[in-house]
């Protein structure tokens, strides 16, 4: 695994992975159904709030305010958590964070931890690192469980098993869950019931839990986890020791700032007015919940991302996954094609930035995995201009590449021709020769790279006269 985690080693570049995914018709049907459903619901949930746009603007500004003075807010958070009996740790990268979790787990005398789904711990590959240290991590979120049992990869930020439909989930449960009833149907309620029974004893006996955090309030030290099933509440309430791994960008200044995000997040993610359960805790409360609380503040590429004045807006992300659900590319390829724990439009800008210098060929292909249609920006509750960052990262990728690559040479030649109208007219005339390739006004086959176009589409034959030639002839 690369030093910072985030991506899966050896996954193919996006165009190749997409080709495989596109051939899977079941996958495309499942994704289409799920994303179409959630898109409609989200639009309804958002339309219900008359002040949605002001909320987005406030959400954007609060996050920008935090990022502009991140050090101060983190120190304030540390002081508040410490004052309330929590212990704060700082982790520069995946390796450091994983070591801290492993050490704390051993100190608590546990060889198993229960986990509530967390993108931060997925990003650092915590489960694998714990396993190497002899500690088993038990994922308790239903979708994570489906992925774990199906020996699959997560394909969505919110719903890692979105690529599976109910009958596939039933099959996975029947195959992999020892205590599942023989006659279980594909009724979602029965499947949820099976998960409940499967995990109940784990919750009741766990000594250590690991969570992420959706928000942490600098002023008060309050940490917030937003969830649906109650597995989060189990993890946050029952074990003696709670370890929370949180990206440093998750801090918000004050308690009242949550009034913005707790409205933006549920409607954007599951399209609900409110998610079933939101838990808030501050340090340790005697007689209620864990006796030990550790908060790990994770960098893992975030300060590098912060240093990029265009790209830093990606750190506003509250992991709602609305951008995935509206993305026409994601809808066709699914999440696995992105080869990262962060798929979809946000993943395409977050993954290469978090990797920084560890960026590889696969991660570098991600900023191109977009038609720049802008649907992601339109729904983003914190107004991340994802197309802007995608284009910015493409420019960085070009900078890093050889200036004599075929593409760079072609682009330079085209820019040179377009730099002067006479040269441009000459180039148009040359392109007009394309008429010779046409039959019935259509070009149906071109050599590479034009073949990538003509593999599924025709091209119109260039006309006998360009517009500028017509203008000069009739008006000039």
């Amino acid at each position, binding site marked *: 695994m690369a030093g910072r985690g985030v991506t899966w080693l050896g996954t193919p570049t996006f165009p190749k992975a997409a080709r495989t995914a596109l051939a899977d018709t079941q996958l495309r049907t*499942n994704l289409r*159904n799920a994303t179409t*459903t*959630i898109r409609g619901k989200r639009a309804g949930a958002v339309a219900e709030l008359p*002040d949605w746009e*002001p909320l987005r*603007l*406030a959400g954007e*500004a609060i996050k*920008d*305010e935090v990022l*502009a*003075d*991140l*050090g101060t807010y*983190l120190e304030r958070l540390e002081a508040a958590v410490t004052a309330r009996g929590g212990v704060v740790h700082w982790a520069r990268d995946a390796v450091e964070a994983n070591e801290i979790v492993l050490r704390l787990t051993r100190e608590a005398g546990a060889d198993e931890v229960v986990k509530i789904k967390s993108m931060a711990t997925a990003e650092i590959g915590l489960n694998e690192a714990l396993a190497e240290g002899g500690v088993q991590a038990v994922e308790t*979120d*239903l*979708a994570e469980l489906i992925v774990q049992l199906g020996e699959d990869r997560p394909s969505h930020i*919110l*719903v890692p*098993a979105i690529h599976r*439909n109910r009958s596939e989930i039933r099959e996975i449960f029947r195959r992999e869950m020892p205590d599942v009833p023989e006659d279980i149907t594909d009724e*979602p*309620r029965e499947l*949820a*019931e099976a*998960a*409940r029974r499967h995990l*109940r004893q784990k919750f*009741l006996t766990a000594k250590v839990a690991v969570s992420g955090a959706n928000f942490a309030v600098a002023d*008060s030290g309050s940490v917030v986890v937003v969830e*649906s*099933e*109650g597995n989060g*509440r*189990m993890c946050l309430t*029952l074990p003696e020791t709670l370890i929370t791994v949180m990206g440093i960008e998750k801090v918000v200044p004050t*308690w009242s700032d*949550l*009034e913005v995000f707790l409205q933006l997040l549920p409607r954007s993610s*599951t399209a*609900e*007015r*409110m998610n*079933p359960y939101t*838990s*808030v*805790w*501050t340090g340790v*409360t005697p*007689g*209620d*919940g864990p006796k030990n609380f550790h908060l790990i503040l994770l*960098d893992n590429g975030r*300060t*590098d991302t*912060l*240093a990029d004045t265009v790209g*830093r807006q990606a750190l506003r992300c509250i992991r709602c996954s609305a951008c995935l659900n509206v993305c026409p590319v994601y809808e066709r390829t699914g999440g696995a094609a992105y080869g990262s724990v962060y798929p979809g439009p946000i993943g395409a800008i977050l993954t290469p930035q978090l990797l920084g210098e560890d960026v590889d060929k696969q991660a570098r292909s991600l900023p191109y995995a977009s038609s720049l249609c802008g649907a992601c920006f339109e729904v983003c509750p914190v107004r991340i201009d994802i197309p802007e960052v995608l284009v910015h990262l493409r420019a960085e990728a070009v900078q890093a590449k050889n200036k004599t690559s075929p593409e760079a040479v072609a682009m330079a030649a085209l820019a040179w021709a377009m730099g002067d109208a006479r040269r441009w007219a000459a180039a148009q005339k040359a392109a007009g020769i394309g008429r010779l390739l046409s039959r019935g006004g259509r070009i149906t086959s071109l050599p590479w790279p034009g073949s990538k176009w003509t593999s599924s589409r025709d091209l119109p034959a260039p006309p006998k006269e360009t517009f500028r030639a017509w203008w000069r002839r009739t008006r000039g």
Partner: protein
Amino acid sequence: MLGRIRAALADRPGPVTVPRDYDRTREAADPLALLAERIEDYRAVVHRVDAAGLPGRIATSLAARGARRMAAPVDLPTSWLAPEVTWRPDTDQSLTIDELDGIDGVLTGCAVAVAETGTLVLDAGEAQGRRVLTLLPDYHLCVVRADQVAVSLPEALARLDGTRPLTFVSGPSATSDIELNRVEGVHGPRTLEVVIVTGG
């Protein structure tokens, strides 16, 4: 890490002024009716009674559910304790995990309710007890007083102390993990029943 953050912000962005043009005080014609409607949207059962009718309503609900052994925070009003039921108060956090796991249900009050989102907020204060009480039993009966109802989330948060252990409950336990559709019933209480007490 703080040094890296400082270096990353060498361009000195900000300061940012946060526009607070969103509605912080939204009004509703009938907040209690809105709360009831929104909780029902989550497929929870809701009743509205006046103060005099509350004890009877609690008794009827518990009987209908067949709940005989109920967990209770130590400071539950005595008038709520229906006589046909065996009450297990959580005196000095004496209820064990196994006992809570096997009990028929739990009765609590709440700190605040949010009408617009159909949310109950528990803050471990009066008539609520510690968090685990409302987590392990499969049935949660919750009483909301009219004066505890806020219309919107901003109004509710302003009434809450963020340093207390808080649980926001919006309907029974649910998941959206199967085909992105909400279905009820995973790890938390699978049945949520709410009694809204109208009037004073």
